[in-house]
């Protein structure tokens, strides 16, 4: 009897463990098949299309509707589909880091022409697959290594982050501002450094609380970190990163704390509190690289997506009245100076040690 109870407990634990370890795949609605067919070819496009459609694939580490990083990548794929003719697109979402290379090789072995990896961490997956398939073009959306057939986007998010810092520094009453980041990697660190510079410029007395939660996917850790910053007195919080930002922004909504989103326009996540977001410009960036590829200009190079090239501060939407006009004017002025090149925000990719 005792033996049986122990067995039962064992099997229950096993069942729970199995449940826990399933990758958090989000169901793809059947109405939207993975291989989204291109729009019905009209007479004109059919005439223009030169035979076989160009096959484009996208591999993502989260769900395409995560309202953040992954949705930004998906929007890039959709931009390709809308802007170019005779293109066929496919994607794999919620791919575990350990499975990234398999997903890339799967598309490569099927003869896809242009394969996009939208993950900062899966470095070797991009390099190894591109090395084994030299005739296929690869795009890694946030990386540090290029090859002849592997282009890399370097998001210049620090510029828009600087503008966000100006807003946060102007609006804080407690002089305590929070920054909840995902993982401290070059692209997120760059963004944090720009933000801190903006804060310091308008409000030298303000202190920026920094929490890197060490995950790009852990929504509840993001939520907890934001809450603890609110308890520590923060009244404006910058969510800097990926999926965990949803937790940061919902915590801000629940505690009525002003918030700034990241990667794409995250207003809809918490309309009551999100002042603006630091858009990294993936949608425009991905479409731009693909355009170069179609034009035959593709070389394995770094694409820096800067302010007004896709990266920008998102609109204030309904919260414009929370930002005083003189602050908005200051942001507009600095934005123009950055675009003109009279103001340069330094790139800081690593913490000083």
């Amino acid at each position, binding site marked *: 009897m005792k*033996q*049986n109870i*122990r*067995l*039962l*407990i*064992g*099997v229950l*634990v*096993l*069942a729970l*463990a*199995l449940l*826990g*370890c*399933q*990758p958090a*795949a989000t*169901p*793809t609605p*059947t109405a939207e*098949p*993975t*291989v989204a067919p291109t729009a019905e070819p009209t007479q004109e496009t059919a005439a223009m299309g030169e035979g076989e459609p160009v096959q484009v694939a996208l591999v993502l580490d989260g769900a395409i509707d995560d309202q953040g990083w992954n949705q930004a990548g998906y929007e890039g794929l959709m931009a390709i589909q809308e802007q170019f003719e005779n293109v066929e697109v*496919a994607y*794999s979402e*919620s791919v*575990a*880091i*350990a*499975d990234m*290379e*398999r*997903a890339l*090789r*799967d598309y490569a*072995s099927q003869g896809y022409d242009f394969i996009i990896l939208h993950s*900062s*961490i899966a*470095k*070797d997956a991009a390099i*190894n697959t591109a090395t*084994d*398939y030299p005739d296929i073009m690869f795009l890694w959306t946030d990386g*540090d*290594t290029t090859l002849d057939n592997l282009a890399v986007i370097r998001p210049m998010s620090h510029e828009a982050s600087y503008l966000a810092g100006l807003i946060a520094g102007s609006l804080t009453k407690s002089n305590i501002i929070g920054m909840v980041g995902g*993982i401290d*990697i*070059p692209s997120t*660190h760059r963004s944090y450094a720009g933000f801190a510079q903006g804060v310091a410029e308008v409000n030298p007395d303000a202190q920026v609380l920094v929490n890197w939660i*060490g995950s790009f996917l852990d929504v509840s850790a993001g939520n907890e970190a934001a809450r603890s910053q609110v308890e520590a007195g923060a009244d404006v919080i910058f969510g800097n990163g990926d999926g965990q930002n949803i937790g940061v922004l919902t915590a801000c909504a629940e505690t009525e704390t002003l918030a700034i989103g990241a990667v794409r326009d995250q207003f809809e996540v918490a309309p009551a509190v999100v002042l603006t977001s630091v858009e990294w410009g993936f949608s425009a960036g991905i479409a731009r690289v693909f355009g170069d590829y179609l034009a035959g200009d593709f070389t394995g190079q770094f694409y820096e997506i800067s302010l007004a090239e896709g990266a920008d501060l998102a609109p204030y939407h309904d919260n414009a009245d929370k930002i005083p006009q003189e602050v908005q004017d200051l942001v507009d002025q600095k934005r123009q100076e950055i675009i003109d090149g009279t103001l340069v925000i330094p790139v800081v*990719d*690593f913490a000083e040690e």
Partner: protein
Amino acid sequence: MANPIGRWLGRDSGDVAERQGMPGWLSTVAIVLLALAIGALLILATGADPVVAYQALVVSAFGSVNGFAETMVKACPLLLAGLGVTIAYRAKFWNIGAEGQIYAGGIVAAAVGIYVTGLPAIIHLPLTVLAGALGGALWGFFPGYLKARLKVNEVITTLMFNYIVILLTSYLVHGPMRDRASGITISPQLQLSAWLPTVIARTRFHAGILLALLMAVVVFWLLHKTVLGFQIRAVGENERAARVAGINVSRTIVWTMVLSGALAGLAGAAEVAGLQHRLVDEFSPGYGFLAIAVALLGNLEPLGVVLASILFAALLNGADAMQRAAAVPVPVIFVIEGLVVVFVAARFLKRRA
């Protein structure tokens, strides 16, 4: 004896359940077919064609060189950890900690592969793989020792030990072992001399897979042809009788867990030295838990575990292909896997009742 296939695939012919009902290997096949049949109904319910879906699954898993290679790549950790679980469960030691033992093996293998320099591959590679086995063995030793000496419930200890080492991995790649050059949260690459060679060019089919198949033969030999194997099985069948017969039960339990952990540790070493070539956060997305289902589906016999690991690998990898070909939502595949687990558990409980 009358059935040679049953002898290889099923449990020992003396198995009570086998005498009462259908032979083990036949009920295993029935379980898989039943799960696939229910899965077909689910696929129909989502409006897709189950024939097209299953066809896509088989073709993607075995229909191309890359597909076959990727299936075996996925089967490798499931097989090695499944063999480890098999040894433990034959002694009725409910090891839920294969996942942690995989990580322990991965950490130690990575440390030896990265920081030991100047050795030729012929020494460095075996050393790295052996180090992984030792790491896993150590992580299996503690729960085994606690059980043998202090009667601490192994379900609790092995489960909890998982968290320690998984989070330790995360700490290492975020901190001491982080690759400073790229700034991403991964370790530096292993020295080339510690890489498991690629067996099939332009795929990820690495020598670790051959090692895994070899280990299946070794475990078969261990369980059925050696004194220790006999002692392990004797302790599992009837601990009191084994003690009366003069078997040192405590010693057998500790050895069981050392071997069980070593095999899971090999899985970790194979992932690190054969696939990732770095220590990566979350490099095992639950292989150690899935290995329990693999071992039970394989009837706790090495040959059965080989087949079960390939089946689970095909299911895992085929999910994407099913989604592409027939617009089947990925969770349906997880339901099929879950059904296999539930049926296997049900059979297991019934047998012990």
